């Protein structure tokens, strides 16, 4: 009895104290905003789910993502070309961007002379701040002419004869590969900056242990720093991949916007984001609009899956290197 009495009294005291010090209010405010984020996510999913009703009824989700026909006039809507274009252009971007970006990270964290480090880092970060429409414009006026003359045309006329992946005709040059290249340039600063940051925090004692064994600078980077920073670098790559998957403007301007699946990387294609952005303002029918909304839902799912894989990878890698 005395115990419960003391208990309730201390409980009341604690509540009063918490109110007095603003703890509780702060806690409630923080909780409110945290829940707001969850609510926002739920609303987005609900709205896209609701809006894509007609398309889901007509094609079914599986039918929608496996069908390769996209013909608004005929009322046929299949998302496979857009999904294919989204995934392949992003993968190209990641493959092209990751090696140089990691190298830039290594350079900035370890090899760069002190005086150059700050300005170079700033420049890499500025690359990430360039609006994507500017990248798109640069792609149209600079990259595509260069790519067409020096990469696509020569390749399609030689190895392209035998390898479908590089088959012509090249036409103006817009297509999957050049979109991947633009996306690569756009995600490079993200991966480089994250790599630099995680490489910088590798503990000195690990580096020194290796130096003292007679390792060269390269060996220290290769055997002490990169393994230690691996989880973070993979995380940075996934951040970049996420950006590439959802990128709209730059891809829209250089990919050619043809909802087709072709073996050749030189052929025009489309991405989910580009297709939604270019067609939503001028839909042919309710089913068209509904299909675009369903495609938004699919894109959201793709990024969700990519992010989950990234989390899983990072978690796995960090558990391996941390716990072993």
């Amino acid at each position, binding site marked *: 009895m005395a115990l419960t009495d003391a208990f309730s009294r201390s409980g009341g005291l604690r509540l009063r104290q918490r109110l007095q010090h603003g703890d509780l209010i702060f806690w409630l405010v923080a909780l409110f905003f945290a829940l707001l984020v969850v609510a926002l996510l739920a609303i987005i999913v609900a709205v896209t789910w609701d809006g894509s009703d007609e398309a889901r009824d007509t094609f079914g989700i599986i039918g929608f993502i496996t069908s390769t026909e996209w013909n608004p006039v005929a009322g046929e809507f299949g998302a496979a070309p857009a999904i294919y274009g989204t995934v392949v252009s992003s993968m190209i971007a990641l493959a092209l961007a990751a090696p140089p970006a990691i190298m830039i990270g290594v350079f900035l964290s370890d090899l760069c002379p*002190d005086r150059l480090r700050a300005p170079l880092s700033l420049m890499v970060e500025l690359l990430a701040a360039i609006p994507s429409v500017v990248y798109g414009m640069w792609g149209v006026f600079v990259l595509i002419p260069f790519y067409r003359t020096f990469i696509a045309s020569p390749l399609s006329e030689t190895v392209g004869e035998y390898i479908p992946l590089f088959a012509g005709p090249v036409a103006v040059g817009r297509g999957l590969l050049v979109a991947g290249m633009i996306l690569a340039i756009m995600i490079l600063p993200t991966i480089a900056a994250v790599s630099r940051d995680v490489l910088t925090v590798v503990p000195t*004692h*690990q*580096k*020194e*242990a*290796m*130096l*003292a*064994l*007679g*390792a*060269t*600078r390269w*060996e220290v980077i290769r*055997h*002490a720093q990169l*393994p*230690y920073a691996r989880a973070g670098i993979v995380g940075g790559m996934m951040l970049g991949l996420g950006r590439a998957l959802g990128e709209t403007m730059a891809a829209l301007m250089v990919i050619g916007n043809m909802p087709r699946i072709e073996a050749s990387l030189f052929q025009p294609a489309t991405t989910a984001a580009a297709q939604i952005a270019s067609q939503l303002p001028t839909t042919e029918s309710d089913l068209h609009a509904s299909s675009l909304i369903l495609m938004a839902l699919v894109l959201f799912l793709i990024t969700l899956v990519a992010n989950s894989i990234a989390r899983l990878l990072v978690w796995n890698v960090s558990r391996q*290197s*941390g*716990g*072993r």
Partner: protein
Amino acid sequence: MSEDITGQSRRIDVAAAQSGIEAESIKLRTRDLNVFYGSFRAIRDITLDFPTMQISALIGSSGSGKSTLLRTLNRMHDAIPGTSVTGQVLLDDQPIYGEDVDPIMVRRRIGMVFQRPNPFEKSIFDNVAYGLRFVGKMSRTEKRDRVEQALKQAGLWKEVQDRLDSSAFSLSGGQQQRLCIARAIAVEPEVVLMDEPTSALDPIATQNVEELMRELSEKFTIIVVTHNMQQAARVSHTTAYMTMDDDKSGVVVEVGPTGRIFTNPKDPRTEDYITGRIG
């Protein structure tokens, strides 16, 4: 700098002769060694001899530049920007700061054990085998032998022989430190530098490491920094006492056979330090 060499070394030899040590071979010498961090001079005009296959102890108060001196002996400072070194360090009478000397080769001959055990995030076996890849190609069996031998020398073999594949972090602190010693000696350096190797260890582990040091001194030249004066007295053959001068630079006050330094110090500052009046 080199014109001082003869004068300085004579002084040391005289000191050695007076204290009854026979002139022995010197593995590593420093001559008028100064180390600067930017414009701050961390150690000043250090001239010391480290005899072959003996344990030399560096003692002195915190900030007197012991670690700085030790790290200068295998060019660990090269990686730290803004650090500069004047004077000379001679390994077998060859300058290690010469223009044409590769610091990598210096570090392969002069290994190092750090204050805190710093094993890699790898298995016990891989930790010890790690440095061997920098030595050159060797067969699997050869590698296994070298690892076993190093672990035996480090007195760790019995404890880990059936768990070579488990993580180095599954070892206790003292075991980890002996693992780091095994890793350092597996590449068969000529000199092993130890910076407070037992300061993170309990008394039993400390005793193990001290015994180990004595055994290792039959094969390697050992230079150890320690805050523990009993340790210096127990394990070392020669002791150098360093202190911080008025301008905060580290200087050597006195050097000699350990027995004499601890029983009959010549400099009052040394006496104050070892009797515990300062530091």
